[in-house]
């Protein structure tokens, strides 16, 4: 039954958009059928995940005429965790798309979008359940290529095309690393079956595998400095696609990395240290770049880099705990990282959908052209604020729970006898605290200047609340954020089951301590509920005070008689203090005019923080390489027949050499 459900889920999602395209454009059938199929597929997929969590690991193997390939599915708790996330957010995204990217407004691209939206979901589900490297790569490539078409939905815009191309290059390089990874794996395993290779984690082959996995999967996850494709792709895709990519697709990189790490019971110390360092850099630098952005979706995209950093921090400290056979640190660190994978999917999807409602209502992504939306779009604003509180890791929502688990791992590491663990814990916790404070500054900026105050443009002043199809998915996501925050104990068993997929140390047959015994889940629930109640009572009191207020007046502006909306503090002014302090990393560019004389001429000011890694490192080096390769240009004729000929020739030569 489980296998049937999985195939049904993958099939329905893949076919959803294509079947919808059979109906005439603009009809209700063409728009609603794909969503209904996606929903049905997702229900099947979620049911399969639940069955897996309830009844344990399943394997299904069928022959497949592809060389080296086998239709082998492996459904375990780790796969189920990721499946739940894929299907939940994909289904909600599809519903949101009904309102956000309707046929009558977007013509042909809507159809294309729905087709590839289903395909990307199916690809992700396939790679997560794949028990065979060839099947994994099929799923991976379907996902990566469908995502390329999703990113470049609005391909008449040059910025969108550029973002799509950067994404395509990045994902090709990532796939290349994975080809190398699976080839090395094949050489030690003797088959393309995905299971633990019979080598020690300290061996040079394992080192090669680790580096390749870090590069290939890290590129997809968007870890600094491999994040270059991410801001452009997420900013330029339609918002529900950004939600799916940021919430789920980049997690496939994390899935691959975690799956690889489950194979080694005793990783060398430098693996954990490397992940910890990558996490710290991604976290701090990612959130700094986010702070400096003026574009609300680009800002959210950099927060994905930050949150991948937090996940890597958790994985790193957990792995160090495994190296020193400290189960508590391992369970808390990796458990926290896995929970953060879920949490980030939920609140980031919520934030992207909220940002989508804003773009839909105002037509702009510039934070400094928004303002005053809280009065015009009260429900979308409430959803966005919920997501913001959650992503800042504040109690009582879900972000706090996963960060608390990672903190608890760091705290235990700090008290550990080993010097490496001590240093990792003692300095990891303050880094996480700093990431949290910077994220708070960033989201207060977005909410304060984008949603509160007076409208800064006519478009923001005429904004309208989003429709029901767009609000309902946001409400569901917000409810999950609250549920994990208030009742984390309910979700801990799934994490325990996922942690059990890690290979036990040789000779030991001990069970890991359940997460609930290491973290104060019941106390957290009680405190969270009390906090919500207290704030609720306080807000009711505030309402009464407001109702009894004798007067409403304009905001106090120190006696200035004619305040305008343009005198409000802008988002770039809000961030300028921090941007200036970290200008060594951010390299802000700007132009400030010099005003002279008692009646200066009108002047303009602008500031901008470019993508430093892309502009200062990747683009120049790629240009250099391209100049060196100019002599090979004659191969590239642009005729598909020729390329097919090349493929054939390469195959024949390879077969001859192989003999």
């Amino acid at each position: 039954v489980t296998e049937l459900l999985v195939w049904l889920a993958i099939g329905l999602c893949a076919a959803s958009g294509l079947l919808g395209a059979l109906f005439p454009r603009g009809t209700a059938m063409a728009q609603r059928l794909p969503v209904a199929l996606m929903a049905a597929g997702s229900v099947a997929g979620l049911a399969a995940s639940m069955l897996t969590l309830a009844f344990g690991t399943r394997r299904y193997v069928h022959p497949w005429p592809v060389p080296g390939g086998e239709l082998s599915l492996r459904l375990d708790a780790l796969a189920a965790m990721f499946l739940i996330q894929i299907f939940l957010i994909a289904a909600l995204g599809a519903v949101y798309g009904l309102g956000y990217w309707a046929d009558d407004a977007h013509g042909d691209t809507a159809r294309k979008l729905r087709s590839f939206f289903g395909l990307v979901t199916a690809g992700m589900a396939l790679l997560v359940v794949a028990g065979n490297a060839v099947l994994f790569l099929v799923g991976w490539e379907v996902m990566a290529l469908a995502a390329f078409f999703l990113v470049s939905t609005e391909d008449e815009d040059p910025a969108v095309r550029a973002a799509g191309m950067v994404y395509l290059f990045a994902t090709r390089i990532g796939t290349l690393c994975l080809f190398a990874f699976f080839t090395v794996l094949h050489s030690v395993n003797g088959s393309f079956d995905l299971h633990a290779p019979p080598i020690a984690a300290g061996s040079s082959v394992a080192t090669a595998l680790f580096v390749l996995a870090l590069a290939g999967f890290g590129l997809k996850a968007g870890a600094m400095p491999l994040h270059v494709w991410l801001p452009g792709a997420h900013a330029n895709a339609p918002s529900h696609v950004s939600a799916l990519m940021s919430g789920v697709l980049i997690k496939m990189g994390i899935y691959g990395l975690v799956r690889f790490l489950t194979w080694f019971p005793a990783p060398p110390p430098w693996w954990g240290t490397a992940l910890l360092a990558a996490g710290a850099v991604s976290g701090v630098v990612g959130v700094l770049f986010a702070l400096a952005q003026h574009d609300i979706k680009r800002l959210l995209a950099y927060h994905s880099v930050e949150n991948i950093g937090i996940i890597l921090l958790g994985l790193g400290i957990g792995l160090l705990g495994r190296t020193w056979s400290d189960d508590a640190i391992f369970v808390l660190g990796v458990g926290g990282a896995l929970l953060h994978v879920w949490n980030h999917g939920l609140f980031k999807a919520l934030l992207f959908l909220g940002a989508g409602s804003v773009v839909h209502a105002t037509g702009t992504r510039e934070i400094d052209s928004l303002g005053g939306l809280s009065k015009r779009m009260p429900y979308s604003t409430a959803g966005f604020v919920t997501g913001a509180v959650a992503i800042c890791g504040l109690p009582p929502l879900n972000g706090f729970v996963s960060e608390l688990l990672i903190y608890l791992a760091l705290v235990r590491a700090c008290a550990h006898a080993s010097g490496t663990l001590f240093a990792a814990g003692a300095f990891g916790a303050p880094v996480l605290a700093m990431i949290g404070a910077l994220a708070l500054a960033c989201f207060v900026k977005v909410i304060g200047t984008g949603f509160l105050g007076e409208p800064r443009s006519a478009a923001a002043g005429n904004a309208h609340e989003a429709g029901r199809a767009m609000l309902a998915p946001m409400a569901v996501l917000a409810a999950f954020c609250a549920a994990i925050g208030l009742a984390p104990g309910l979700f801990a068993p799934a994490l325990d089951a996922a942690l059990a997929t890690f290979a036990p140390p040789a000779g030991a047959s001990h069970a890991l301590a359940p997460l609930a015994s290491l973290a104060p889940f019941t106390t957290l629930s009680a405190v969270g509920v009390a906090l919500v109640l207290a704030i609720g009572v306080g807000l009711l009191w505030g309402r009464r005070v407001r109702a009894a207020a004798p007067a409403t007046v304009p905001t106090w502006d120190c006696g200035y008689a004619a305040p305008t909306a343009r005198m409000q503090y802008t988002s770039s002014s809000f961030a300028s203090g921090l941007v200036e302090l970290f200008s060594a990393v951010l390299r802000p560019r700007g132009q400030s005019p010099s005003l002279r004389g008692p009646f200066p001429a009108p002047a303009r000011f602008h500031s901008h923080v470019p993508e430093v890694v892309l502009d200062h490192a990747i683009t120049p080096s790629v240009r250099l390489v391209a100049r060196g390769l100019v002599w090979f240009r004659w191969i590239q004729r642009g005729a598909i027949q020729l390329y097919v000929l090349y493929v054939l020739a390469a195959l024949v030569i390879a077969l001859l050499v192989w003999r």
Partner: protein
Amino acid sequence: VLTPLDVVLHVVVTLVAPPLLLGVINKTKAAFAGRVGPPVLQPYFDLARLFQKGSVFSTTTTWVFRAGPVVALVAALFAAQLVPYGARGAALSFAGDMILFAYLFALGRFFTVAAALDTGSAFEGMGGAREATFSCFAEPALFLGLMVLVRLTGSSSLATMFGAGLGGHWATTGASLVMVLASLVVVLLVENSRIPFDDPNTHLELTMIHEVMVLDHSGPLFGAVLYGAAIKLFVLGAVVVRLALPFETGVAVYDWAVFAAGMLGLAVAIGVVESVMARLRMRQVPSLLVGACLLSAFGIVLLAR
């Protein structure tokens, strides 16, 4: 051993005592300036007056404006229950409560700054930006300091970290703890907007941090702001006092007396600092906070043996 009476006392002290601290600070400052100054109980009178007044609201504001004072007050009250008052323990403690403690104040800050921006005033935006910027350095300083105590006690619960045995750690690792104490004093002053970081008595909106964020709050909501700020000062002050006075007598009355004397001493000390020092230029604040971080970091390095 923590008795139910201690828990009740802890809650009552949290609710009643904080404004007294402000009264003592103001009295000290008056004494330095050669004035008689307002009565020590003046903050209570002010609060009572504010809670009876009507409010004036800006037409720009929404529910977020009201959430600022409410969330900040509730978060401070919750955080207070996690902090041990002297040697008598905390009302609530569990593994990892130090993280909840720090994040509750962050929750309060989130809504205070959002409420400031809700008015659409450039002045309040400026104050909010400063608050958000400086906390990015105050948070790591706080955590670096706490990690020293985590290392010493092996616990992440404030009641244990600052519990019995703190005196013993002073004897063996005094150098680290002195650095942590200095760093936490800096965090206390910046988080509560005291001189040398911010002047609660300044009258120029351009130079304020905390006061300017609440410029538009009036009546009961402004009362909630002041009350919440007093609790925050009291709670962070209790952490510093416990670290500086690591004694336990075993007798409840004496323990409470040591704590009360410590808190009054802290209030006088803050008053003295505010009387003899000028505030820093705004640009120098991050440097001092980075200094506090480094101080605690050295405290950690000293423990690596």
